[in-house]
C-alpha cells in the first residue's frame, strides 16, 4: 500500500444493534461472509429503544463520524413496541441535529431483521460511503478528545 492510501479518511462509525434482530442480522452477514467496512463497530443493546440520545451525542463528542441504529422492523420488536419509541425519539433527535447544522447523513436508523444479513451488509456499505462523502465530523467533536 502506498503512503497516500494510509492517510485516507478512515471514519469512525458506531452501530447500535438490537440483540434480537439486527445483531443477529450482523451475525448472519458474518457467517455469510458478506463483507463491509471495518470502520463499523457494533455495540449490542437489548433493543433499539435502549439507545439514549446521550449515547449518540457522546459518540460524536468523542470523534465518531457517523452513528447508525439498527433494530427490528416495526411490528417485529422482541419487546413489542421498543422500536416504535426509538423511531420517534430518533426522528426528533435527527431533526434537531439537522436543525443545528449537523449533516443529516451522519445519523441513520435502519430496520434489519435476523434474516437480513444481506441488507445489513448493504446498509453498512451505503452508510460508510455516505460518511466518506461527508468527511470528518468537526461540528460535534470535542477537541479535547482528539489525539
Amino acid at each position, binding site marked *: 500500500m502506498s503512503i497516500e492510501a494510509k492517510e485516507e479518511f478512515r471514519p469512525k462509525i458506531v452501530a447500535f444493534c438490537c440483540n434480537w434482530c439486527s445483531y443477529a442480522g450482523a451475525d448472519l452477514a458474518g457467517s455469510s461472509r458478506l463483507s463491509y467496512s471495518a470502520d463499523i463497530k457494533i455495540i449490542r443493546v437489548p433493543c433499539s429503544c435502549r439507545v439514549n440520545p446521550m449515547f449518540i451525542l457522546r459518540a460524536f463528542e*468523542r*470523534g465518531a463520524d457517523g452513528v447508525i441504529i439498527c433494530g427490528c422492523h416495526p411490528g417485529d420488536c422482541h419487546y413489542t413496541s421498543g422500536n416504535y419509541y426509538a423511531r420517534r425519539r430518533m426522528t426528533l433527535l435527527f431533526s434537531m441535529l439537522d436543525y443545528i447544522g449537523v449533516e443529516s447523513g451522519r445519523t441513520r436508523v435502519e430496520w434489519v431483521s435476523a434474516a437480513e444479513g444481506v441488507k445489513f451488509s448493504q446498509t453498512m456499505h451505503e452508510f460508510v460511503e455516505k460518511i466518506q462523502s461527508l468527511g470528518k465530523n468537526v461540528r460535534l467533536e470535542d477537541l*479535547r*478528545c482528539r*489525539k
Partner: protein
Amino acid sequence: MYKIARENLTALFQKIAADQELYLPVRTADQVNFGVWTEDADVDLDTLKSVKSPKDVFFPQSETLYTCIRDGKKLKVEPEALKEQDFVVFGMKACDLKGVEVLDRVFLSDPVDSFYAARRDHGTIVSMACHEPEETCFCKVFGVDAADPQADVATWMIGDDLYWKPETEKGQKLTENLADLLEKAEDAGSEAAVGEEQEKIRTIIEKLPYSNLSLEGWNGDVLMEKFESPVWEKLYKPCLACGTCTFVCPTCQCYDIKDYDTGHGVQRYRCWDSCMYSDFTMMAHGNNRTSQKERFRQRFMHKLVYFPANNDGMYSCVGCGRCVEKCPAALNIVKVVKAFQEEEV
C-alpha cells in the same frame, strides 16, 4: 494626558492587536461581553455593562491545569503552560477594576495562584469611566468612583473624543507604543472636559436609587448574629438556585476542579463554580449545605461578612449591579441588605 478621536479607535485597536492580544467589549448575537478583538469584531464601547464581568480575562470560566496522556499502562503528565504573552484589556469600568482588586486578594495572597498571577503580570488594563451610570449601579456604596477608574491607563469617552491618561509604568509603556496615534492633550480645555464629565457622572450617581444604601452592621464581627438571622428563611424563597448571579459577578472566585476523560487520558481543568449549586463543595460524605437557604445565605455572608473578616474590612461586592439586572427571580444583594435593615428597625 492624550486624546484620540472616536473614529480613530479602530486604528488604535489594530495597532495594539498587532503585537498582543486585545480584550474589549464585543457585541456577539446581541449581547456585549469582553472578547478578543478581531478585524470583524463588533466593538461596543457604549453599553455600560458587559453581561459577564471582564474577570474572565484573568480568571477564565474554565482553564486546563494539566493533561495526562495514557500510553498502555504508562502515564505522561503535561502541566499547562502559564500565560507568557502580554495582552491589553480595554474598557474596564471602575467597579470591574475593584473586582480585580478583590480577586487579587484571593489569588495573589499565599499560596499564589500561578495561572492568575501570570495573567495579571502580562495584562495591561485600560479602564473607561462610566459615561451614563444606571439605576442598578451602587458602586459608590463600596467607595468606587466610577468617574475616575484607576488602572494602567484611564480613559474618558467624551463626545467624539477618547481622553487617555496613563497612570502606571505599564500604562506609560503602552502609551509610548501608541504615540503616533495618540494626540497630546495637556491643555486646560482637555482637563476641563474631563473634569466636567467626572462631575456629570458623580451627579448622576448621587441620584441613583441604590447609592445611599447603608452597609452599617455588615462586617466581620457580626458573623453569628447574621448567620442565625430568621430573615434568610424568607429571603431565599424565590431563588431558583441557578448560577447567574455568581457567573456575572466580578468578584465571585469559587471554582471546582474536574477531570475530563479524553479517551486517551485525562484533562484536569478548573471551572467557575457557584455556591448556589446543589453540588457546590460536594464531598465524599455529601454536602455541607443541604438546603437552598444555606446556599443562598453563603453567597451573601461571604460577600459581606466572611470576606471583610479576612481582608481588612474589604467587602467582596463592588456594586456593579449585574446581579440586580440578571437574576431571573429579581433577587439581589441590595434586597438582602435592605431586608436586614427593615428587620432590625
